[in-house]
């Protein structure tokens, strides 16, 4: 069994297409400007169907995490971390959250509130050690 691929539909294609190109895109309501994630066709704040996206800067902080030991999926070699991160968005004080994998950080070094940077690989996004200048 190989790693599951993202499930892409009309409502969330922008997200996974962005990740495949090396960017986390967050839905932004054109009418009221609020941000939302996960994707939804309608703005929860004002019910507008019109939206655009903003690109996360690549800087993030760790909101929570778990280290999965059992069952170990066949595509993992040992206990692996899954993280919930707060994304920095330019010119916004909102910090939308996403779930992603971790890359380049030892499981035991994970600390809530630690700074992270986004890393993109094989159509997925991961949180890696913080570095200057945001995402590559």
């Amino acid at each position, binding site marked *: 069994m190989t790693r599951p691929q*993202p*499930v892409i539909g009309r409502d969330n294609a922008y997200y996974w297409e962005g990740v495949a190109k090396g960017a986390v895109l967050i839905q932004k309501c054109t009418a009221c400007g609020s941000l939302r994630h996960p994707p939804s066709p309608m703005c929860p704040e004002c019910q507008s169907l019109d939206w655009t996206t903003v690109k996360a800067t690549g800087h993030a902080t760790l909101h929570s995490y*778990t280290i999965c030991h059992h069952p170990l999926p066949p595509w993992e070699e040992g206990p692996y971390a899954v993280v919930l991160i707060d994304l920095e968005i330019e010119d916004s004080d909102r910090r939308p959250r996403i779930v992603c994998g971790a890359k380049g950080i030892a499981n035991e070094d994970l600390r809530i509130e630690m700074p992270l940077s986004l890393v993109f690989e094989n159509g997925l996004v991961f949180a890696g050690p913080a570095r200057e200048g945001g995402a590559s």
Partner: protein
Amino acid sequence: MKASLSGATAIVGIGATEFSKDSGRSELQLCLEACKAALDDAGIAPRDVDGLVTFSMDSSPSIMVGRGLGVAELRYFSLVDYGGGAACATVAHAAAAIAAGLADVVVCYRAFNERSGRRFGSGDAAIQARGESPMAQHFGYYSPYGLITPAAWVAMAARRYMHKYGATSEDFGRVAVAARAHAATNPAAWFHGRPITLADHQSSKLITDPLRLLDCCQESDGGVALVVVSAERARDLPGKEVLITGAAQGSAHDQQMMTSYYRDDITGLPEMGTVARQVWSQSGLGPDDIQTAVIYDHFTPFVLTQLEEFGFCGRGEAPDFIRDGAVHLGGRLPLNTHGGQLGEAYIHGMNGIAEAVRQVRGTAVNQVPDVHNVLVTAGTGVPTSGLVLSAA
């Protein structure tokens, strides 16, 4: 006078199969055995059933259950969504249907071979979710990263709870120790005769950090059914009345299926808060009026959160509330006196409702003295439900 379901209906029958790891028979057969047992307990002939309610996840169609029971005509049948969050809601739907005159005798059921058949803990369901459906896309945000099991979905919230309130793995472990102490003296429990210590909990293997094996409920085969009728009809039946004085569902702002990670604060269960406000309002009761509770325990951390949502203690105070044996028999609030899903069996919360009925009847193996009102909750992390059951 405000309109209310409170006290209008009663649970008059409970039935169950044995709880095992390999039932050796079909889920439909387990279901029918449980339904027949519940109707026998109520003293109601199976042909008199005219309503059936179950989980949308259940595999036994109401028409096949009705056929097996020899039901003359079904007038009400409904499915409740969102996994174990449906448990108490099946009773709420039954109560509402009876109060509205849509049915007279409603059986609520849940039966599965969850251990010998498809195991929820395998992660297969999340991995295999595909297609255009919104729920498949939902699971698809997590499955590529291996966040695929109920334990892992809960662990993410539990870790943040620990960070915010300074809770520890031992705080979670105390929930399991109490459940296994109660299971140890319940002959129907899988873990009958097998209590654990906090040291056992601490040395059990990590499943998905911070959750250890003994933080996780069992996987079980079995079935449970409950019979609901009007309070008026209940008075004419042989058994002691167990009135439904509170029955409610809840889903809250930005609700997700097991992954409500996008709210400002992920250390609460606001959907259970919605349930709590309703059942307290309906019943006119509060935490001090509850002698024992059945709090859904698929994973120990959310037992703590539920105690906070229902107001048994303040936010972040549940670790202190349970520290000195308060949730054991003889404590301030004995919890899950049948052993819970950690100790008795995982029947998606329905075995807990049966235990609440026994506590009100005074027939539980681990009976709490002078029980007037019991709180029961359903699955957490999902849209959920709750009940208050009371003596007449």
